[in-house]
């Protein structure tokens, strides 16, 4: 029971993953997001070796469809996995194993792939994609956030009679540097998507400050001063 979206910003070439689930600390199991290479995300019954292997194969020059075939050949339990792969050019491969539980599936939209399992139905995928496509001019992290909210509002995880809350969520965006552009998480929370929105919005206020104090420490103001300025401005 998880729903996720992998997206690419056509303007900037940035790649990102948005994910939320009933499981705890899902952001700690998203190592398949690699700058200049692509994204591989395995969920449902994840084979944790898949995502590092997937991005290594993408980096070697294999196409997503071929990477998926190699992951299948490497894993006797491939039918229990749900996997989506996107390379840096936006090519996509997706797989929903026949043994994943509850309503499971994947769907592609312009520059994105939505995938999930243990969902109330296909409307969740539609909600993810509609959210992603809502404002194509927005920064990728906000498009991924809107997608997760769209999936949640379309019913999210569970069955028609029993809804399951999102307890953890994460958004990761990479550009061309070795470290992520955006990497925000909620690990245990009763409404994790809502909490992730709060964290993301707050982080965006600090983003430039954090980056610039590392690049130009001699001119950095102390963080308490910055935080006070921020509060004053918000009032």
């Amino acid at each position, binding site marked *: 029971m998880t729903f996720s979206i992998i997206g690419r910003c056509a303007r900037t070439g940035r790649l990102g993953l948005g994910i939320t689930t009933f499981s705890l600390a899902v952001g700690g199991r998203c190592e398949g997001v690699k700058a200049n290479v692509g994204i591989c995300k395995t969920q449902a019954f994840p084979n944790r070796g898949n995502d590092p292997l997937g991005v290594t194969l993408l980096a070697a*020059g294999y*196409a997503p*469809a*071929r990477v998926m*075939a190699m992951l299948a050949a490497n894993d006797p339990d491939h039918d229990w996995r749900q996997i989506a792969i996107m390379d840096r050019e936006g090519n996509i491969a997706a797989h929903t194993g026949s043994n994943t539980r509850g309503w499971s599936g994947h769907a592609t939209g312009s520059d994105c792939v939505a995938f999930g399992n243990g969902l109330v139905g296909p409307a969740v995928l539609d909600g993810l994609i509609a959210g992603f496509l809502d404002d194509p001019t927005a920064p990728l992290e906000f498009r991924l956030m809107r997608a997760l909210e769209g999936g949640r509002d379309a019913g999210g995880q569970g069955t028609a009679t029993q809804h399951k809350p999102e307890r953890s969520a994460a958004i990761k965006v990479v550009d061309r540097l070795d470290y992520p552009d955006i990497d925000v998480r909620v690990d245990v929370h009763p409404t994790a998507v809502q909490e992730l929105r709060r964290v993301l919005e707050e982080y965006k206020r600090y983003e430039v400050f954090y980056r610039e104090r590392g690049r130009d420490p001699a001119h950095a103001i102390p963080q308490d001063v910055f935080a006070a300025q921020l509060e004053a401005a918000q009032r």
Partner: protein
Amino acid sequence: MTYTVLARCPRTGHVGIGIATYSICVGQYCDGLQSRVGATMTQAFVNQGNNGLALRLLAQGFAPARIIDELGLNDPYHDYRQIAVIDREGGVAAFTGPKTRGWAGHRIGDGCVAFGNVLAGPNVVEAIAAGYAADPDAPLERRLLRALESGRDAGGQRGAQGHLTERSAALRVFSDFDYADLDLRVDLHDHAVDELRRCFEEYEPYRAYYRERGRNPHDAVPQDVFVARLKASKAEARA
């Protein structure tokens, strides 16, 4: 509409490519060579990711035939590609996709592949292979160039409208370094193979000079002085 010779010199282990085509700037696509690793070229309908992937697989020790299989599995349009791979031991494999156009084919020789598409006929690749094999003791670059000229003289490329001239050509050889030993190109010319020969013969006397002035800058003479000496010695030879 391209003909190519890809080869490894059995004496020196150097790898090289000679290529000529109606397309312009073909040298841009010849990035599939690496010292002590091997050589590869994808042509016809080029998948530009192939050369990089094939070189990484060669570096890992895969056999050329296995690499072509891998490229096939990785590419929905494999049937449109023409590919040759040579490993560091001279192992060779080649593939001519059934959907490449015109007369297309390859001929595998000793540590070499002659291959092309939209050609006058099989005699062209035969001629390339024969040209390459003609003087096994010659330096690799001269063997490659001779192979191209033989292909040209055997009719070269022929499209729907008849013969197609070579508009671009390239000659690249890697020996032991991270960079090419020899890397010459003609990007846009009416007779690119002729022009490539002219460039090569002109460049050849400079090769050692260019190499040595980088290694021993203290002793290097200025290039204008070197050129003057070159002219003088040529004049002397004529006289």
